[in-house]
């Protein structure tokens, strides 16, 4: 790792300020992606802004939604009885990210801000019609994710929390990459009174995306048969040494079926 400076921010505005006064500062949340990258010397930030002391942890029931602080660890979400009751699928998703040690350190905000195309959380934010709360504004999920590793976040913006709408029913099905255990395909299906949202991660070249064909099929008939009736195209899907686009397309269908029937 190149040498760097660490600033411990006490609140998000201090964090933003520190970013502003650095040349190429980076927010350090759980560090599960950032630290391995730094160890490989694949980035050379002059400053890391540690936001663990910004008071951004915690889970709140907001009636029709659940609001989770950006620095809430995956393990805390997985073990939260509030989340388990309100959106069990979200607790399941958090409990399946990485491994136990990653869940003990990794955070919701870090995962969402990074928007790794194979991360689990972005699919939940998208399928649960989430809102990303930053120090400046609220951003709807559909506006937040801008393609692989890209988000609507601006330089002077830090995620403070994410809200997830409570669905009638939801399920996340992940087919992990056998080596890295990231999602090779992850499908989050959420049924709301006004329709079904299906978000797919791990598969799209542009990162997480909503699958409109599956959504409309499931909105009119929430069943496995409805999924079978949808031809999942491999256009725009990733192809790598682990899985071709065709195979990913097949997995999207299969994981969706499993999510629907669970």
């Amino acid at each position: 790792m190149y040498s760097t400076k660490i600033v411990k921010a006490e609140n998000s505005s201090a964090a933003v300020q520190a970013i502003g006064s650095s040349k190429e500062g980076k927010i350090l949340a759980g560090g599960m992606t950032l630290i391995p990258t730094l160890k490989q010397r694949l980035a050379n930030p002059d400053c890391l802004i540690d936001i663990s002391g910004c008071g951004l942890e915690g889970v709140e029931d907001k009636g029709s939604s659940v609001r989770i602080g950006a620095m809430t660890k995956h393990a805390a979400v997985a073990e939260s009885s509030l989340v388990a009751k309100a959106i069990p699928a979200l607790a399941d998703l958090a409990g399946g990210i990485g491994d136990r040690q990653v869940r003990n350190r990794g955070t919701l905000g870090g995962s969402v801000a990074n928007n790794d195309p194979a991360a689990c959380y972005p699919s939940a934010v998208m399928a649960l019609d989430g809102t990303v709360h930053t120090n400046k504004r609220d951003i709807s999920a559909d506006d937040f994710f801008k393609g692989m590793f890209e988000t609507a976040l601006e330089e002077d913006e830090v995620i403070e929390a994410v809200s997830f709408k409570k669905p009638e029913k939801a399920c996340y099905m992940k087919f992990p990459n056998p080596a890295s255990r990231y999602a090779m395909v992850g499908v989050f299906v959420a049924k709301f009174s006004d329709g079904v949202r299906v978000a797919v991660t791990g598969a799209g070249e542009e990162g997480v995306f909503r699958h409109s064909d599956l959504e409309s099929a499931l909105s009119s008939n929430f069943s496995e048969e409805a999924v079978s009736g949808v031809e999942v195209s491999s256009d725009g899907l990733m192809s790598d040494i682990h899985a071709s686009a065709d195979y990913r397309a097949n997995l999207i269908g299969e994981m969706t079926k499993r999510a629907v029937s669970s």
Partner: protein
Amino acid sequence: MSEGIGASVKRKEDRKFLTGKGRYTDDINRPGQVHAHFLRSDVAHANIKSINTKAASAAAGVVAVYTGEDIDVGGPICGWVVPNRDGSATHEPPHPLLAKGKVRFVGDAVAVVIAESLQQAKSASELVEVEYEELPAVVDLETASAGAEIHEGMAENRYFDWELGDEEATDKALKSASRVVKLTVRNNRLVPNPMEPRAALAEYDDLNDSYTLYTTSQSPHLTRLVLAAFMFQIPESKIRVVAPDVGGGFGAKIYVYVEEAVCTWASKKIKRPIKWTADRTQAFLTDAHGRDHINNVQLALDSNNKIIGLRVDTLANLGGYLSAFAVAVPTYLHGTLLSGLYDIPAIYTNVKGYATTTTPVDAYRGAGRPEATYLLERVIDQAAREVGMDQAEFRRLNFIPKDAFPYQTAVALQYDTGDYEPALDKAMEMIDYKNFESRRSEASKRGKYRGIGVSSYIEACGIAPSAVAGALGGRVGGWESASVRVDPTGTITVTTGAHSHGQGHATTFAQIVTEKLGVPNSSVELVHGDSDRSPFGMGTYGSRSLAVGGVAISKALDKVIEKSKKIAAHLMEASADDVEFKEGKFTVSGTDKETAFGEVALAAYVPHNYPLETLEPGLEETAFYDPMNFTYPAGTHIAEVEVDPTTGVVEIVDWAACDDFGNLINPMIVEGQVHGGIAQGIGQALLENAHYDENGQLLTASYMDYCMPRADDLPSFKVECTNTPCTHNDLGVKGCGEAGAIASPPALINAIINALSPLGVSDMSMPATPETVWRAIQNAQARAAE
């Protein structure tokens, strides 16, 4: 006796590892130590036009920067060569310690930067400017055998072209066969991945003009030999090699690598201790890889379904340089095992070893024998399917009968003993083979395809006798040495040239001592891994530690007993011929005289009442043991799987292994070795693959992409043993370290094919990843629809 041979004694070495007190190479630090970082080639194949180290040399903390031009000693050598079919010799191109003029794989070391801290060394290495003239990468065997040139003057880009067996008789058998079963298989390239990455710490002693090298080695004495005699050309006494606790080897830590040699060489230049520890990606790039064969197989059957001939034509991808035992693996460790445990009258094999611009390939757990077993058990399975016989019964029909031992195979080996049916029967019973079909139909109701796969294997352990190895091109001996020192108080120090890096030698070897001398395990201390403290040795590989090293200890113990009897005879005023030794006591037959082993030990060192005129004082004996033959463990593994056709995921639902390792010293440790071997075999069959792109970039260079078996990928295993004791060593033992990795891949692949055969699937490549399996199903369904 509860701590002797045959007891599952808990391991003596556990306590230090469990409390974090293990001492691995990277745990050792020396005063004044500096750190080495190797600048490696990013390109697979290129001429080096220039290297500029000026800026790096001037960087903060840098002590020295060296390139290939600075190094005046030779590089790694080849430990085994074979004759070519035309009588010429194996081509052994030089392997410089740091690249000279050319790089031949991604990861080839181009320069070393030595600095006060590792971070400084890394930063400075970024300032080294290397100008490459890129040459075409050569990744696969097709390209390698089609006119590539990687080493100047090496004809046809081939290291060797070797044959074994009777080609004429084999081709005749193929011609006269009532059926010829044909199969082409690829044995996927693997990365050994011991959990401890390689490391070295080299120190030069100015006063004595000598070196100490701490290194992650399976064979410290061989490292000393190669460094002293072949690289530095100095007396061996000037180099001490210490392999302290070593975190797994699996073959990858047998050889002398450039990094440890460069650190040793440079430690004299800069007169400071130099430490180097690989990170995991460097381990992926530079630890010798394993396997990577393509085998064309033809099996001839007569009208009674008896095998009458086998021809195997093999292409082996050996990488950018010829690693120490790279030649032996696809030839004598592979070709000689092609008879398996079958009675095959005619066998012929030709093996061509090619250079590619990839990491050098050498021995990985099993080394040649997994490749032989894989192709053989796959073609046997296909033969059974083609003739419509049960896979187990087809094997039984062709097994070497138990009254045929010693059995001379058509490929040079003579199996001393064996009885293959009991292991097959037991494995079938363990997995409830006879009720499999009902399980298959139950699974199909759940939408799953269930399959069962058999693999019967044999292997050859303990590469010896030396004379034979030498005649076949081996450049090292096949013996092992041991010394047993009885201390005056009756405690025992055993030194061995074998090296334990997970095998539990301290426990197993102590059990031999306990059995023979009647002393408790706790009185036995094992010394190994330090070339200054143990006699010359050969190290640990090829499942040889017990069968060769353990027997050497047994022989040294016999000498100790023989001498002790003489001392005891003197003490008891009897004739040595009348003295008996049992359970730690010497008695004189027909009398009630007895004396304890401890008293004899004391008398040997305090020889107040001692036959000094005929016997030297002291009680310490050394033995060198060179086996008469290999040992031949054999057995049957049966895997049962369920395939989910919607995703192609293979779940291993049951595993039964029944192995014949001869006599067992510590069944608990043996079982553990089998578990680990099976896991690595499952890794090969389902998960692992070293994947190069067409430019020679290794795309699986971390655990993000190279799929290591994890706990949730594997089932628990049912493991049992049969026993036909080895006939040619004192302990009746065989080897057990590699069996699991040899037996398991074909069992698993056969099980998958068996599961999917109702769909018309008849082939499956390794690793059988979900997509590979899913595609096979899709293709079979598409064919069926046509």
